[in-house]
């Protein structure tokens, strides 16, 4: 028993602590759990995953945005793990392009297998023909001729089968080697070091200025020739304008449509 206060009145303190009230404690826990549940069910803006377990309409799924393949309409540039210093243009992957590549790879594999199978089926057909021809053997002149052909064909079947199989295997190996990323990938045959303009070489600049080396500029892929969509340093050479200015930089007026 205690008395508190500055005056000499008797004071008995009564203090309420929710920790001591089991029912209140349980109630608070229930409310807290319910509110946390509501928070997870609510759709969120910005970062946050929300409820990943339930199938509610508010649940953000893995294919949060964009199409049947998912994540097709996401951010134009990835926000994580991006190399911001590199000047290399970022190649954005999406599920559709991945799927397309997978389908193409499968088609290539199937094509090689199909060729090998065609070799085998051809061999089997040959066996059939040979056995048919042999059945005619021993029945008249015509039959004897056919029997002779059958005997020759019978000897040629096995080499033909082997040739067919080898051809299939070689074709599949070639396809694999020439496929994108393979050792003989044709996309990487170009040597850009030979194609790029060496601005530090006066000899190269002279060749361009004199029109001995042609530099064509166009915005259209694979555009060749000197159509109206292509500009080259020859246009400058014809008009007597120096392609390189005194600072040694390539003339800025080389762009399409500015001549």
């Amino acid at each position, binding site marked *: *028993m205690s008395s*508190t*206060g500055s*005056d*000499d*009145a*008797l*004071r*008995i*303190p*009564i*203090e*309420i*602590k*929710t920790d001591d*009230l089991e*029912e*209140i404690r349980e*109630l*608070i826990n229930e*409310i*807290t759990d*319910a*509110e946390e549940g509501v928070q997870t069910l609510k759709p969120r803006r910005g970062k946050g995953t929300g409820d990943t377990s339930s199938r509610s309409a508010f649940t953000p799924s893995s294919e949060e945005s964009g199409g049947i393949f998912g994540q097709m309409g996401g951010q134009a540039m990835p926000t994580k793990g991006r190399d911001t210093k590199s000047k290399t243009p970022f190649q954005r992957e999406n599920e559709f392009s991945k799927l397309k590549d997978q389908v193409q790879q499968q088609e290539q594999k199937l094509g090689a297998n199909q060729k090998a199978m065609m070799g085998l089926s051809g061999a089997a057909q040959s066996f059939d023909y040979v056995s048919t021809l042999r059945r005619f053997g021993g029945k008249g002149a015509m039959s004897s001729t056919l029997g002779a052909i059958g005997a020759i064909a019978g000897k040629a079947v096995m080499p033909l089968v082997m040739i067919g199989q080898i051809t299939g295997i070689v074709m599949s190996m070639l396809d694999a080697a020439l496929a994108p990323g393979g050792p003989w990938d044709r996309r990487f045959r170009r040597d850009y070091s030979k194609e790029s303009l060496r601005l530090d070489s006066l000899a190269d600049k002279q060749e361009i200025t004199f029109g001995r080396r042609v530099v064509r500029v166009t915005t259209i892929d694979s555009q060749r020739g000197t159509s109206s969509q292509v500009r080259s340093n020859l246009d400058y050479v014809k008009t007597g304008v120096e392609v390189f200015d005194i600072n040694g930089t390539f003339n800025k007026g080389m762009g399409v449509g500015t001549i």
Partner: protein
Amino acid sequence: MSLDLTKQRLSSAEERVNRFIDQNLLLWATEEILLPGQTNIASSISQRASEALSLEKSGFMKVDLKWDFRSEEGAPIHFFLEYGTRPHRIEAKGRDNGGADALHWTGPSGESRFAKVVQHPGTEGKNVVATIKEERTPALRERIIKETQNFMEVSSI
């Protein structure tokens, strides 16, 4: 009003419950402890003693049961009743000091007794307020639980 609601939603469930209890504790303690306690004191001691019992808010979720029962001279009778008294000497004030020349009391057999000075053996403490707190606190707890549950049900709706 909307600011209050926003604040309430932002705070945790425990804070909301505690605030609700704190805001209403004085009222509930008055109904569950003070009024029954005053009835007890009025029947066991006196009406004036019961009116000296009160409640004061002393902090967050805290109230004090205060008893300030004094004699006309200002003696703290509440302490004497609550905790008892030690053996002590009682002397008549005397007519010169505005009192009587002799003390008077009734003996065990009902006869009047007079003396100028007595040695009082002391009294045992009655623990009036402590007993009220002990007896009535469970009712206050029940009230808090009931009111809080009602409040949370209503606020959740």
